[in-house]
């Protein structure tokens, strides 16, 4: 089984033996990998019954809980890291989720797509319509991605809320980092992986 490339990158940032919470953990692939290779105690939150079942089959701790209903059931600093891959743009209040991640965890690791990527800009600029691609296959009215943002937007939010960015890795769809995307990340990067703290 090959790891998703973003998961491969994230695991480099996880200290062995740490306590993790994965928001929107999907099928539990990352948590399974991290508990096997990094000996972490991990929990995932998920609401999709199929994905929850996949977690159970993998022996991953999974809690059926909707992120949009808040995370108030978790105490301050309960976790070493709180992860959220490809879900920031799909929650109702991304800023509040980010704040909560840093309340319950010492650091947060997030990945999300960059809406300012040149392909999005080109699509919107030439067609005048919301970008639809293989990577973002939804139309505006049925997309779960209700809060798209750009890398610049995210970093501005972090600055406003006094959130420190510890690491940022900008990659393309296949999670490869090129020297070009490093040069003009907000134009050439498609997905960013951030590690942030207070």
């Amino acid at each position: 089984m090959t790891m998703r490339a973003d998961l491969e990158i994230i695991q480099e940032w996880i200290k062995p033996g740490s306590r993790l919470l994965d928001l929107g953990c999907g099928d539990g692939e990352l948590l399974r990998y991290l508990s096997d290779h990094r000996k972490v105690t991990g929990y995932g939150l998920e609401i999709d019954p199929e994905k929850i079942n996949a977690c159970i089959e993998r022996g991953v701790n999974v809690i059926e809980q909707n992120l949009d209903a808040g995370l108030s059931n978790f105490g301050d600093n309960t976790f070493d890291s709180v992860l959220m891959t490809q879900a920031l743009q799909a929650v109702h209040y991304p800023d509040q989720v980010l704040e909560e991640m840093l309340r319950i965890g010492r650091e947060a690791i997030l990945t999300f797509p960059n809406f300012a990527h040149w392909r999005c800009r080109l699509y919107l600029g030439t067609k005048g319509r919301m970008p639809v691609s293989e990577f973002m296959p939804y139309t505006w009215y049925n997309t779960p991605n209700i809060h798209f943002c750009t890398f610049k937007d995210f970093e501005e939010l972090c600055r406003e809320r006094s959130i420190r960015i510890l690491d940022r890795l900008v990659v393309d769809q296949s999670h490869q980092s090129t020297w070009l995307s490093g040069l003009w990340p907000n134009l050439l990067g498609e997905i960013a992986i951030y590690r942030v703290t207070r």
Partner: protein
Amino acid sequence: MSRFPADSVGLVTPQRQAFSEPLQLACGKALNQFELVYETYGELNANHSNAVLICHALSGHHHAAGFHKVDERKPGWWDACIGPGKAIDTNRFFVVSLNNLGGCHGSTGPSSIDPATGKSYGAHFPVLTVEDWVHSQALLADRLGIACWAAVVGGSLGGMQALQWAISYPDRIRHCLAIATAPKLSAQNIAFNEVARQAIINDPDFHNGDYAAFGVIPKRGLMLARMVGHITYLSDDSMGEKFGRELRTDVLNYDFTSVEFQVESYLRYQGQEFSERFDANTYLLMTKALDYFDPAGAHSGNLASSLEGIKARCMVMSFTTDWRFSPARSRELVDALFAAGKQVSYLEIEAAQGHDAFLLPIPRYVQAFKAYMNQIEVA
């Protein structure tokens, strides 16, 4: 050629173990000798690592799966989840299901003969707690050569026993499945139990619990107790769907004796049937065990600290329309397990059937239940 479905454990015969070492109880008394009736399904493997204990709920018993007779109308109470290829797969697991101490289906209880007097215990049978049950179940495990359960599984009051196992015997349970349960009863739960108890106690045939000596049973009280209880097992939706305001008669009779609404008829039938097969003293005892269950009580109300010693991985499941033990009560438990740093998974299953859902073959429930059981190692 078997007459039973392929996924049934088939014909089963209850077994019995007698214990003569005194069992010290929470109430301060001891039971000097007692018997436990149980059934087993599947085969215990060579290193005894595949044993699963089933804990029953308020009115349950040892007959959880299969059939006692070839022509038995209904299989055991949890047949939906126990059998070859089912959630608790008897091809993999050795399943033990007992009638709890204090029960009325063969294990020593209020209707048994007290060897000290030669008469039935009646009102003198000691009040038992969930902890007492778990200790008696541990003695049964010793007898069966089971040092550590692969899993202890239960719904409702059974879920409390599963949780108590994880607390009392952390080294003797690897997985704890607590379904449609709560870490303690709410005032509302206790209130319903109290109404049930008062119905029984105030039946003129109750005779302070010694009704056997008078050759009667407090059927009316027991029937009423069951009717109240039964309402709490169903959801408003499921009752609405099943009965609505449907009438059994064409016209209203303007009296208090006719059975007019379908729901009245149903409740009376359920209560009637129950009062003929269940012992009133056992019912009182079971409701008290429910009321007393509160592992956090000994820890100044701090549930998380009462769970500190748990080593088992826990699986908690609740049902959306269960208002007797609502999802919020399960989340209380999950949050406490979390706070105590324990391994826990939690599912909130969409189901219209209320508390009774845990007994029913709801696809998502059974699928998740099975997935969890299947990942348990039984090397």
